[in-house]
């Protein structure tokens, strides 16, 4: 397992480098001056602007700028946000946990729904349950997350007034009440993301179980008199989840997109809404940093998926 991990890590590094090159290339190709917005800002005199340009080496050739930017990033110097007047890394670290919490909880919810439903539907293909689950799944991933979010707000916040739709990190309560309030406000965004993901993962699980259930070793397991339930839960599910892990990992970039939208709708102070607000405010350092962080997170989650894959499938780790 250790060897496998090292191999995956070694592959992840060129990916990160590649992503950083792509991002930086996009930035370098962009016309206009990232600091042009400062030109209209009366608080920054022209000499300061010129000094900033030299300091950030904006007039150097692109490869030099890239290396310098990469080195800075690696050392934790992510720049300064003129809009928020604080270091970018502080800003991001402040908001990252919220995003990770919402995404993490929604993925867990998604798996808790998708795996049982998918397995059950696959064991009774073309039954009423299966067709219903399939149709619901289609509806689930055809509904754009922003629409689902709005619908939930309409129903649960406006009509029923059960759940608050603005996320606050400063809830003035203690103990259980604090947790309860947090849960109440996190419920809708987690549900939106979770149900969307559950819709597609359910179909993957179903397809994978259908593939596995017809394999020879499942017949062997039945021939051993283990009972259908044990055959399914022990022999089929673990094998069926192996390709699903890969597919879920591939969806990570899309999940972050959904998180951005959800944070906007529910006004969650995560890095997704930070990205939007800094775009609207022309705060380039933040935009670059957040995009890069999101890309890094994708690589990180792919690595985690690789680890889970290696754990599930011994053929990978025991060569």
């Amino acid at each position, binding site marked *: 397992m250790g060897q496998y991990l090292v191999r995956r890590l070694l592959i992840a590094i060129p990916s990160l480098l590649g992503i950083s090159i792509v991002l930086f290339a996009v930035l370098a190709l962009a016309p206009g001056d990232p600091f042009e917005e400062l030109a209209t800002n009366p608080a920054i005199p022209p000499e300061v602007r010129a000094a900033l340009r030299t300091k950030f080496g904006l007039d150097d050739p692109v490869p030099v700028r890239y290396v310098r930017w990469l080195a800075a990033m690696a050392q934790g110097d992510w720049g300064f946000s003129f809009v928020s007047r604080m270091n970018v890394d502080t800003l991001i670290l402040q908001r990252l946990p919220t995003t990770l919490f919402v995404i993490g909880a929604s993925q867990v919810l998604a798996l808790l729904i998708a795996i049982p439903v998918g397995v059950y539907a696959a064991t009774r293909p073309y039954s009423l349950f299966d067709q219903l689950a399939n149709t619901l799944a289609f509806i689930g991933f055809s509904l754009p997350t922003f629409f689902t979010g709005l619908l939930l707000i309409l129903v649960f916040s406006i009509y029923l007034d059960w759940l608050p739709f603005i996320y606050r990190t400063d809830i003035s309560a203690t103990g259980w009440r604090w947790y309860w309030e947090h849960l109440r406000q996190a419920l809708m965004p987690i549900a939106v993301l979770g149900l969307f993901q559950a819709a597609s993962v359910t179909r993957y699980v179903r397809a994978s179980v259908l593939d596995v259930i017809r394999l020879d*070793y499942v*017949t062997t397991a039945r021939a051993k*008199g*283990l009972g259908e339930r044990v055959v399914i839960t022990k022999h089929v599910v673990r094998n069926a989840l192996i390709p699903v892990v890969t597919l879920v990992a591939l969806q990570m970039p899309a999940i972050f997109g959904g998180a951005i939208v959800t944070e906007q709708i529910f006004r969650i102070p995560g890095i997704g809404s930070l990205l939007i607000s800094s775009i609207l405010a022309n705060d380039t350092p933040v935009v670059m940093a957040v995009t890069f962080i999101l890309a890094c997170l994708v690589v990180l989650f792919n690595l985690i998926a690789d680890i889970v894959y290696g754990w599930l499938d*011994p053929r990978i780790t025991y060569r």
Partner: protein
Amino acid sequence: MGEPLLEIRGLKTHFATDDGMVHAVDGVDLTVHAGETVGVVGESGCGKTVTALSVLKLIAMPPGRIVEGQILWHGRDLVPLGPEAMDGVRAKEIAIVFQEPMTSLNPVYTVGEQIAETIRRHEGLSRRAALGNTVDMLRLVQIPNPERRVHDYPHQFSGGMRQRVMIAMALSCSPKLLIADEPTTALDVTIQAQILELIQDMKARFGMAVMLITHAMGVVAETAQRVVVMYAGRVVEEAPVEQLFRQPRHPYTAGLIRSIPRIDTAAARKTRLEAIGGTVPSLLDPPAGCRFAPRCRFAMATCRQAVPPLREVEAGHKVACVL
């Protein structure tokens, strides 16, 4: 010959497909007595595997169905049994070894786990005791270094070794009948002999009966005491092995025996390899009358009208032919 363990009477297993109802097994009578080896031969698609799977009710029930017949195990009919009762029979009374060792073992669990779970299910032993039994079984099937290998995964074994593991798994609960469905077809020729020998050894040691399914007449000649010949979903001949080879009564059996490549005769007479002309009939719409009639050089008008029943022409020798 001991008492009859397994009696299959008039078994019909059909499959519903888009193109119609496939009569994979269409009236099969077969008996296995305690301690004997019965060889079931026939070409691909004649229904031997489906018969074996039907015994343990391993047929996928949505498209497949046991339409008719009885499968008597110690006099008790297995056909109406529910899944839980069948689970008690599987591996504990009747065990099966499949053809493809490369895909018959679950890749994500160690071979030890897969054997031990059978033992724990049927014998109720603790984990440690089951592991001990597992190691013993592996040693029995001559896997070197069983204490270490018991923690290995299937992909770390070769094909022949995997088949030994399958045999160990099948015999782990001391069943009275072992069904071996083409156990050597997917293996190298050199390994084939070893596996067959292993099965014979195990049979002697456990005193069990063996139903050996194969399409190779040579295998049957070496290992079986009685042979059942199947064609197109039905049994066409049944006889003790020597009699079958010396005096085959059914034209199909005769054709099968003649088509075995033999060094001595071919070289001596320099004749071409004899094959039975024609192809197996469609099981969707079996022809009325004897199924072999279209390919049989002795076919007469009566053959095409009604299916000849299996009748005993000599002691222990049954044929389904008007001849």
